[in-house]
């Protein structure tokens, strides 16, 4: 009887450590860096899920050995942090890397996320998605706190050389709305719950392997060096 409280304490300690270990394992969807490339594709890999908006917004050749797909929200601060890292990866890996951006505005968490996604897609209809994408991320802090983002986004549209009248019309167009919805459907089919969520050749990169740039560089290098069937 004297030992019982100590036994209970030890049991709870063991359960706490075990629970933490289990949570850590389940919170890390895929194995990091070294093992990422050799891991078998997940059941919910992008190849077997909703295709998303067509054509997708991509950078890099279609036959690049490393295909990176980001689900992002322009108002999400970590997405803003990841943006320069992805630009660095694009420069460093060149033709060996293809980057795809998918819309995943977190509504209602971020009040302007949908407006930002709409602005980017409307710019995309004039072939300037990436210019607006960069503008939105690079100035995220400026418009994040704004009450009305429309004049700010219009100013960005002017600065990247869009036809403003067409841009304004496209903001309410069905194509823009459908593209965002289709990307959202793809996100849900892949089990995406937050942003940024990044897949590399169909496997989700754990968030802790995305930043800083050194970590992501290592993940991509490992993927490129891995033997592919």
């Amino acid at each position, binding site marked *: 009887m004297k030992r*019982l*409280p100590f036994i*209970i*304490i030890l049991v*709870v*300690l063991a359960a*706490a450590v075990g*629970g*933490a270990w289990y*949570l*850590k394992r389940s*919170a*890390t969807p895929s194995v990091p860096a070294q093992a990422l490339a050799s891991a078998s594709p997940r059941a919910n890999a992008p190849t077997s899920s909703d295709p998303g908006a067509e054509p997708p917004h991509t950078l890099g050749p279609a036959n690049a050995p490393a295909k990176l797909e980001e689900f992002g*929200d322009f*108002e*999400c*601060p*970590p*997405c803003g942090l990841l943006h320069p890292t992805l630009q660095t990866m694009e420069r460093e890996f060149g033709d060996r890397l293809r980057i795809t951006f998918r819309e995943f505005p*977190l509504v*209602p*968490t*971020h009040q302007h996320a949908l407006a930002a996604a709409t602005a980017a897609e409307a710019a995309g209809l004039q072939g300037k998605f990436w210019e607006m994408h960069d503008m939105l991320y690079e100035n995220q802090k400026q418009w994040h706190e704004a009450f009305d983002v429309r004049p700010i986004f219009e100013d960005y549209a002017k600065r990247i050389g869009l036809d403003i009248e067409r841009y304004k019309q496209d903001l309410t167009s069905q194509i823009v709305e459908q593209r965002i919805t289709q990307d959202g459907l793809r996100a849900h089919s892949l089990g995406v*719950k*937050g*942003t*940024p*969520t990044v897949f590399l050749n169909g496997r989700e990169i*754990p*968030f*802790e392997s*995305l930043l800083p740039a050194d970590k992501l560089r290592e993940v991509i290098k490992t993927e490129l060096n891995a033997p592919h069937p």
Partner: protein
Amino acid sequence: MPLTHDPGIMKPIQPAISSAKEKAPRAARAPTLLYAAAALLSILGLADAIYLTIQHVTGQSVRCTIISGCSEVLSSSYATIGSIPLALVGAAAYFCVFSLATLAAFGYRSAGQLMILAVAPMFAVTLWLIYLQAFVIGHFCQFCLFSAAITTLLTVISFIAWRR
């Protein structure tokens, strides 16, 4: 002046003593039950803090999610002490309170007194964290609020148990 009848005076002493004896075990049991309740609450707090720690360690808490508030709170500079997640400190504190409450429930009196010393700073930190969420960060995280509720209950319970 006529003498009035006071039934209390007429009561036999013996039954009064035996009644006190009957009440004694019930009174002694009360702190035990309170400490047992505190131990159970600490386990809930511990589970919550472990969940938040893992979210922090794996970077999940830093991501933006559909649930508003948590990512803003947990990615703020207040979520860490140096490089140590605040949630990990919370987990250690809850485990400490759980151990003390368990020992107190098994009759270790000094454990109950130590529990007050452990819970008091936890409650102070809880108040500070609620202030930060409300007035500095501007967002509330439901996991942090759950922890705040647990700590508040633990404070009340340990105080009542100590008074008895």
